[in-house]
């Protein structure tokens, strides 16, 4: 076993092609933002009924995944698992990059993105949104320091561990904050629940690790650096545990809510007769994002193949988007129960299931956030010594 050596990645054909592709998406998003700025949200599918749309699905996915991308670094620094240590730098970089991508989408979807400075300087401290602004900024600072301690020469291990521990606690707080954006909303039957915070935390574990696995696999392949199948397999099984946790928390969420008579309507809507939302829940989240990945990574023989982990990671991401879509859009599509005991109707869509048709600008903006996150990650690996030259199983140590 040689010493782990970190080196900047060198541009090659595959990397330049990827960069060009990301550039196209960034340009697409820039165009979408200008278009939405000029004409207003009228050009999106969002309405006064579905006030948060596809951009929020992308933003929340990315912000949740950001916290989870830090898993590997946390496991190495806080829980002392040395095989993960060579991946810690990338873990921290990817976490910051995903958060930046998610926040960019969130900010550019604001009705007045030009007033970002107000959001950064004028706070209502009772708002969980305002707390989140601190949690996001703090995340950049703390994970940045954590990354620095990992990269600085002759930094005492104790300092790295302390920084890693603070980052670990902070990311838990951050995702608690993200989940509580929904959990603390008393108005909507789909949300009001303390389980939203822990649910979002386990979602972050799964989504973030899935993104991390794909980024490492892709980068090591295109740069020709070894990535041991046993290490990949180990990450895959860890992903399986997280996917199982997401299913468990989802089950508890719906069992609890469904048990209450007053929430019968929303639960029937999501689980049985909600059309696209029911399909996305069962087929998207549970089957594609849950059961199939579990079967793939825990299969006695097939589970050891690198392809199983890679396919499982892709499915977890797709299922994750479906889950966030059901939470964000499905939760708004179901009508508010302002007049219990009555069926309401009005010019403002009282009492009806709201329709939502996502538009191209929204999709392009969301994809731009993904592209931004990946561009930052790529640039970071290009200019900083993030990625080890050798991640072969022999080199990263005992499994």
């Amino acid at each position, binding site marked *: 076993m040689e010493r782990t050596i970190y080196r900047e990645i060198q541009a090659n054909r595959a990397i330049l092609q990827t960069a060009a592709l990301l550039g196209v998406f960034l340009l697409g998003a820039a165009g979408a933002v200008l278009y939405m700025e000029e004409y207003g949200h009228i050009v999106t599918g969002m309405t*006064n009924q579905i006030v*948060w749309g596809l951009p929020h699905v992308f933003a929340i996915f990315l912000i949740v995944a950001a916290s989870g991308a830090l898993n590997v670094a946390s496991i190495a620094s806080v829980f002392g698992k040395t095989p993960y240590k060579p991946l810690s730098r990338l873990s921290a970089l990817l976490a910051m990059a995903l958060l930046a991508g998610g926040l960019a989408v969130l900010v550019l979807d604001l009705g007045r993105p030009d*007033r970002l400075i*107000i959001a950064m300087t004028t*706070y209502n401290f009772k708002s969980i*949104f305002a707390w989140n602004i601190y949690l996001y900024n703090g995340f950049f600072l703390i994970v940045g320091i954590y990354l620095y301690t990992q990269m600085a020469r002759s930094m005492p291990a104790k300092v790295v561990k302390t920084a890693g521990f603070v980052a670990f606690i902070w990311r838990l707080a951050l995702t608690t904050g993200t989940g509580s954006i929904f959990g603390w909303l008393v108005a909507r039957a789909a949300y009001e629940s303390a389980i939203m915070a822990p649910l979002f935390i386990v979602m972050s574990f799964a989504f973030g690790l899935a993104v991390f696995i794909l980024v490492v696999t892709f980068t090591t392949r295109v740069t020709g650096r070894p990535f041991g199948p046993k290490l990949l397999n180990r990450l895959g099984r860890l992903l399986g545990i997280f996917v199982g946790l997401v299913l468990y928390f989802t089950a508890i969420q719906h069992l609890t809510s469904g048990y209450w008579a007053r929430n019968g309507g929303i639960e029937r809507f999501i689980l049985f007769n909600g059309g696209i939302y029911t399909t996305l829940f069962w087929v998207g989240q549970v089957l594609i994002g849950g059961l199939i990945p579990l079967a793939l990574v825990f299969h006695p023989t097939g589970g050891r193949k690198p392809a199983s982990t890679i396919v499982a990671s892709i499915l977890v991401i797709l299922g994750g988007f479906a889950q966030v879509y059901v939470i964000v859009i499905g939760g708004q599509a179901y009508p508010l129960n302002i007049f219990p005991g009555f069926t309401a109707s009005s010019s403002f869509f009282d009492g009806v299931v709201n329709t939502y048709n996502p538009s191209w600008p929204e999709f392009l903006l969301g994809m731009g956030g993904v592209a931004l996150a990946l561009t930052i990650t790529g640039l970071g690996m290009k200019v900083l010594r993030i990625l080890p030259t050798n991640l072969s199983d022999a080199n990263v140590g005992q499994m």
Partner: protein
Amino acid sequence: MKLPALKFSKKPSEMDRRDFLRAGAALATITLAPGVTLMAFGGSEAKANADPAKRWGLLIDVNKCVKDCTACVSACSQENGWRLPVNKETDAQWIRKVTLTDNDTGREEYLVTMCQHCEEPPCVDVCPTGASFKRVDGIVLVDKHICIGCRYCMMACPYKARSFVHENIVDEQKTWAPRGKGTVESCTMCVHRVDTGRIPACVEACNATGHGAIIFGDLKDPESEISKALAKYPSTALRDDLGLNPGVRYSNL
């Protein structure tokens, strides 16, 4: 403001760690510096005229609200300069007529609903910048200068009382009710009228039709018409279970 220059004497691809961090610091400065100057100019006139000894409220008598009458809705639209909905999904509606059908008996009732001016408004709690605020006299408003258009208040409102301005406003704006694309708005209880001793436009219009279904007044004054009516007849608040104590009450619902 002079920005630290990036050194490109080397090939850009060989940008070292120090350059990278320096670029990051420059970006952070550009983002934050304008805010430091903005902080110097604070203060809001929006809260100036409120009297803490009052709490303004409305009492809507469902029995008196007539099926096809929308006089209050039209009056609000004219008074505050929002058009009656053309694009129903995206146009603002500060007040709306609702038809209710009793799930058990099939009996129909009619009422109007708008911002309920809660004592504990969830929109004010969740607003990250404090643009959503409650005056000391109980009127809940949006400060149009600091609303960033995040729509979290719309997610939080149990009454669906708020609208987001989805497109450029082409209609004539009223000086007392500024509106702007990309911000959120809702019923102001005609605060500009109330502050000059007049009653809200919806109440005036309802009275003019002879229905008299909406009473406006000071909930803290036991001698006001609204307080006397509330003391005399049973009334309820929408979603009373949430404990928000709205300033808008309904009788005969």
